[in-house]
């Protein structure tokens, strides 16, 4: 079981609460987590990654285990604590006023 935490506006778009849980078979990577997330919540397609390039949107970051994983390769394994469900995979928006 993978735990995912989304920012406020994406939670509203997906009509979910503070934390989502996903069941994923195979390697646990940024790509497999985001694929599973978008498959279950198709309204999030394009809001985290570009539709075609699958590049992370510029003002979003991916954190887990107190580390910034935003620039890790999308197919690199996520930390074991994320894969085991001990720690969440966090999608977070850049802080800005206004």
């Amino acid at each position, binding site marked *: 079981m993978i735990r995912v935490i989304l*920012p*406020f*506006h*994406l939670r*509203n*778009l997906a*009509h979910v609460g503070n934390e989502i849980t996903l069941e994923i078979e195979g390697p646990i990577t940024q790509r497999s987590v985001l694929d599973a997330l*978008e*498959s*279950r*919540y*198709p*309204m999030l*397609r*394009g*809001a*985290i990654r570009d*539709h*075609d390039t699958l590049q992370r*949107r510029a*003002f*979003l970051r991916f954190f887990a285990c107190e580390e910034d994983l935003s620039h890790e390769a999308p197919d690199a394994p996520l930390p074991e604590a994320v894969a085991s469900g001990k720690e969440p995979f966090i999608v977070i*928006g*850049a802080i800005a006023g206004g």
Partner: protein
Amino acid sequence: MSGVRVLVGTRKGAFILSSDGKRQNWEVSGPHFAGWEMYHLKGSPADPNRIYASQTSGWFGQIIQRSDDGGKTWHQPGTPAGQPALPGPPKSWSNKFAYDSSAETGKPLTTHQWYDGTQHPWEFKRVWHLEPSLTDADTVYAGVEDAALFRSTDGGQNWKELPGLRGHGTGPNWQPGAGGMCLHTIILDPSNPKRIFIAISAAGAFRTDDGGETWKPINRGLRSQYIPNPTAEVGHCVHHIASNPKRPNVLFMQKHWDVMRSNDAGDNWTEVSGNLPTDFGFVIDVHAHEPETIYVVPIKSDSEHYVHDGKLRVFRSRSGGNDWEPLSKGLPQKDCYVNVLRDAMAVDTLDKCGVYFGTTGGQVYCSPDAGDSWNPIVRDLPAVLSIEVQTLA
């Protein structure tokens, strides 16, 4: 009993203001999509319960929302709220606006002029304006930044560019205005389903007479000092265009500076700024029943985006321009420094015609008597980006 529904897009959400035909007592619903920039909402003339909305964010990109019950509930087309998620490919791409670069429709993606005069690739940013078809609730046009026109024929689930506009040849001379290179005005001709007018800041006005396949610039008569050739075919910062549906060949334009008029579907324009205190502004609209009665809100200058003399005044011409009268009854006449953005004025079709506008200070005003007097419906919304009105039977 007849009534009106005012659709308000703001910097931090959407609001729906409802009243009966008297337009005195209002019910306020919202914020919908709280915290998001709502560039535009518009109802379908073919089905007033069908409303499209452009929800956008620098963080999360573009979202299209749709209501099928007059704004009570909303969903992203193709992904209804509460529907069990299915694995596999998505059923739709309601928020995907991909510029057409296919070989079939001919043109490789061009570049346009950047602020510094160099060429820059087209990059989708957001939907500025949604224009539902006059006859089919599932067909809707979207004007986007960077400027292009898209159309959906399945209720907003999928979008396809009409590439003849961006690719017709003058694209490399288009350039962004301060707000971005946006296609902000779409007028569907009720007398000719093949004819569409659009306007782009800063490229100018364009018209198709074949349903969007081919386009031509319609900017003859415009004069703009901020481009090297002030009378160039394109490059003009058109802020908004309006027409009366009963007389679609007569167009009125608020340009960056200058209020303009065309009697021949945009082929030629003449200035009708007349006695306005300043002819800079953003909005322009036409009375629903009197096609020579038009409204503007003069803004002091392009360096001072607020109303003239600290007074919020709508100016009305009953002669199609040149002779203007200030309308101020009920509007603040001192210490007022708001702006009224290009899509933030609308008219209803009741008798008397109601006129509505929203300000960057968060006020939405209604005149139930064609501009003679004004009342605030709400005073303290986020900055208003757009106003549309539905007249309900």
